[in-house]
């Protein structure tokens, strides 16, 4: 028995494949999904989605979205999702540094709390990307 995994972004269908087992970064913790899971709808946080297909484990970076699990079909709706090959490690590293610096500044100022929240999201995305590549 296999799961039918589909990752959809606003731009295109990023990935459609069969997998034996999938873990997704749910909002309140990681979820491992095996075939025959009960129907479930959950928010995702920025994190790594990994799936096992044909003995090899693959990783995809997904940044906030939704997962719809319906028996043997998982549909991931992600605003941004990147395969390993699509990630630019250098760019991510510089973005991380810049964001960390800005965050330090923003945290000093009470008026910039909203911005600080955004920056934290940004840092999280950068870290996820680097984890996927590593």
């Amino acid at each position: 028995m296999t799961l039918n995994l589909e990752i959809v972004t606003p731009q295109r269908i990023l990935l459609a494949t069969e997998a034996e087992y999938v873990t997704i970064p749910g909002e309140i913790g990681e979820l491992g999904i095996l075939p025959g899971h009960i129907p479930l709808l959950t928010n995702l946080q920025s994190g790594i989605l990994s799936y096992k297909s044909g003995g090899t484990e693959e990783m995809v970076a997904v940044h906030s979205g939704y997962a719809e699990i319906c028996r043997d079909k998982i549909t991931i709706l992600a605003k941004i999702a990147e395969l390993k090959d699509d990630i630019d490690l250098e760019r991510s590293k510089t973005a991380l540094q810049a964001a960390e610096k800005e965050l330090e500044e923003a945290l000093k100022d009470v008026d910039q709390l909203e911005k600080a929240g955004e920056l934290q999201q940004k840092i999280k995305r950068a870290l996820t990307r680097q984890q996927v590549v590593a």
Partner: protein
Amino acid sequence: MATLKDIKLRMVSIENTQQITKAMKMVAASKMRKAEENASQSRPYAEKLKSIVSNLSNGLDQSAHPLLTQREGGKAVVLLITTDRGLCGGLNVNLCKQLHKLVPDESNNFDLVEIVAFGKKGNEFFSHRGGNIAESYRDMKEAQYAEVLGKTVQELIKKYMKGEFNHLFIAYNQFKNVVTQIPTIQQVLPIEPPDDEDAAAGEQTEFIFEPSGAGILNAILPQYVENLTFTALLNNIASEHAARMTAMDAATNNAGDMLSALQIQYNRARQAAITSELIEIISGAEAI
């Protein structure tokens, strides 16, 4: 009467124009293919999102979420998506005219229309006619428009939640096929829960929600709104290129028609000149 030289000059100028329209048609055709592909690739996401939203909001009361609640009166904001460049037939004008008719009256429940214009043409149309333009974005690349539109919509959602305005519409050209683009004015806020065909077909499944149905709804509704506008933008880009291709094809054909008419006129004039010259020679010879 036009001399031979005059006619020849006009023909050359028309030929030049024809070459330009032909080239523009080719460019539009290739851009359209790309834009159409983008639009069709964005469809799975939009459809899935729609089915989740309809699933979640099924059986929910309007008052369950501020983005679903109908509010009377107040201001209506319209996101008007047009092109930056012309030469694409009646695309922008048809849309703007339709939007121009959207005025407060008994049939709708708002008192004031405010326009946020994306694209030069919409801005021009309404600034000449005293439209109420709040913001205007122009001369950007497609990717930039998508980014700015996303940000604007997020801002608008925040303002909507605060109650600064009560209705949000989006006006764009829906891409149906190469020859048909439909000027569309669609209500975005308050969200009208979409009817899902699957649900009607009895494929409704009971989902477990994590963390909770309300939590997901809170996150997904703004996302849904944003995606509606993103899809509209992609549709309008595809429509632009399709309309330009059709317009330029027609222009190329018209130039061809003009050329053949002028060619006949040119031949006649040449024949007339030869005949009159012959008459002169013959009458001259007879006089001797």
